[in-house]
């Protein structure tokens, strides 16, 4: 049968729609798609609530089991998993209202490069960006402790909810190639590959050029040689925390002037008191003399 372009496009779309016959869900709309499957907004007719429904090849059904085992505040909870009448697998999960990290940042102006700590109206600010990074990193660290690696960490797979909550999505179990800019150049993807991707995620979050110490953290996490990276995610997060507390980071041998400046900013009150005391002493010295 000869099909026109419009009929062909319609058939491709109609036949791709998940067949939810016999399930408790009603399809609403597509909200995203990736290498692992397509995510739809749907209505759970039994519990009268909206859910996110992920549809994927039955051969990757292990992903749902894996997701269901991960219980962490930054990992979206799975409500139910099953198989559709058309043979594809699905799982229903909490529908997050918020924005993907790339879109969340795109709608905010970037931090001015010369003043990385200056907050622009509406800008998440460096501290907030680092909070998002730490939350995502904690989810990955937790998953690693359960023997699960993500394989495709990137801004599109991190969601920022309307209350500021952070979720890491799209946990992979299949042979996912990853996204070039965020994928480690490793032949086999393992925990160290996730550390590489976290480094790329941190670099994405930083303003250009970003603080030198954090750039060094990114460079260490993204070392082409897996052995040169942080040994685990907690070690990476600890270095970021050290930066936030104005302590020297493990990834960078800072020059003396930088150490002095960091010391000054960390002990500003003490230095001001010392300066005031010295000035007072000088003043007293001159008053006595004349």
């Amino acid at each position, binding site marked *: *049968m*000869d*099909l*026109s372009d*419009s*009929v*062909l*496009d*319609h*058939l*491709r*779309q*109609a*036949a*791709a*729609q998940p*067949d939810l*016959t016999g399930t408790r869900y009603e399809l609403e709309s597509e909200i995203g798609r990736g290498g692992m499957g*397509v995510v739809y907004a749907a209505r759970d007719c039994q519990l009268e609530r909206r859910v996110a429904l992920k549809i994927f*090849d*039955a*051969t990757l059904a292990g992903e749902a089991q894996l997701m269901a085992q991960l219980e962490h505040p930054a990992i979206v909870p799975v409500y139910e998993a099953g*198989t559709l*009448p*058309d*043979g594809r697998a699905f799982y229903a999960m909490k529908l997050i209202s918020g924005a993907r990290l790339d879109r969340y940042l795109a709608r905010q102006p970037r931090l001015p490069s010369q003043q990385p700590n200056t907050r622009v109206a509406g800008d998440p600010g460096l501290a907030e960006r680092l909070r998002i990074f730490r939350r995502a990193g904690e989810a990955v660290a937790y998953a690693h402790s359960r023997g699960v690696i993500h394989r495709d960490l990137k801004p599109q797979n991190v969601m920022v909810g309307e209350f500021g909550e952070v979720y890491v999505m799209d946990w992979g179990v299949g042979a996912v190639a990853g996204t070039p800019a965020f994928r480690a150049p490793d032949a086999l993807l393992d925990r160290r590959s996730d550390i590489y991707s976290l480094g790329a995620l941190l670099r994405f979050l930083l303003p250009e050029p970003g603080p030198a110490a954090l750039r060094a953290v990114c460079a260490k996490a993204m070392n082409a040689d897996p052995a040169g990276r942080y040994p685990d995610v907690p070690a990476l997060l600890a270095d970021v925390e050290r930066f936030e507390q104005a302590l020297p980071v493990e990834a960078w041998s800072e020059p003396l002037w930088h150490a002095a400046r960091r010391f000054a900013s960390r002990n500003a009150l003490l230095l001001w008191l010392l300066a005031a005391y010295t000035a007072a002493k000088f003043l007293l010295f001159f008053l006595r003399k004349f």
Partner: protein
Amino acid sequence: MDEDTAIGGFADRFPSTQLSLVEATAAGLSSEAMDRIVALYWKPVYRFIRLKFRKNNEDAKDLTQGFFAAALQRDFFPSFDPAKGSFRNYVRMAVERFAANQHAAATRQKRGGEAEFEPLEDQAAPVGSPEQAFEREWQRQLFGLAVDDLREHSEACGKQLQFQIFQAYDLAAGERPSYAELAAQHDLPESSITNYLAWARRMLRGFVTERLRGTTAGPNELRDEARRLWI
């Protein structure tokens, strides 16, 4: 569960009858398997030759015929190596080589002459490259054959009404009737229209997958090709 079957549907709902290319080749490519390849690729090959080499209708038909004849003679299909890419790309590249050689041979025969390009007189304006046109034609052919399979299947199992509703809605060339209009026309509840369409689409998806299975090397290529198809 058989992994192959899981891609298209449950074994008890949509029985798999097709061997993958690798399995079919190992069993000595049958004429039925060859027919399926030719049915799916004849038009994409013809279209590609017309656009890429600017051949007129008759020359493009001859070249297409020549390509499949040569492919059969030279055991071209069994020498496909799935490690090097998809079967679809393998066919397209082979056609390109074959048609280029034929074109060069024809040009040499014209003493001192330049290659003669035929005008694209009766062709619709090409959308994108010949390679894109090849893929689009391949999709069109794949779905067209699957619709034929669905019609035959509906007749064989007494589900002509389901097919009629599918035809009226999903194959409508212009404006689609509403579910309510279809329900009134066939004196059915609206929920039956929803269910009939869901059945037809599920079966169509299964037939597309079956057609793909017979022209791909195995589960991985089948899955990759299926992903490219579904919008």
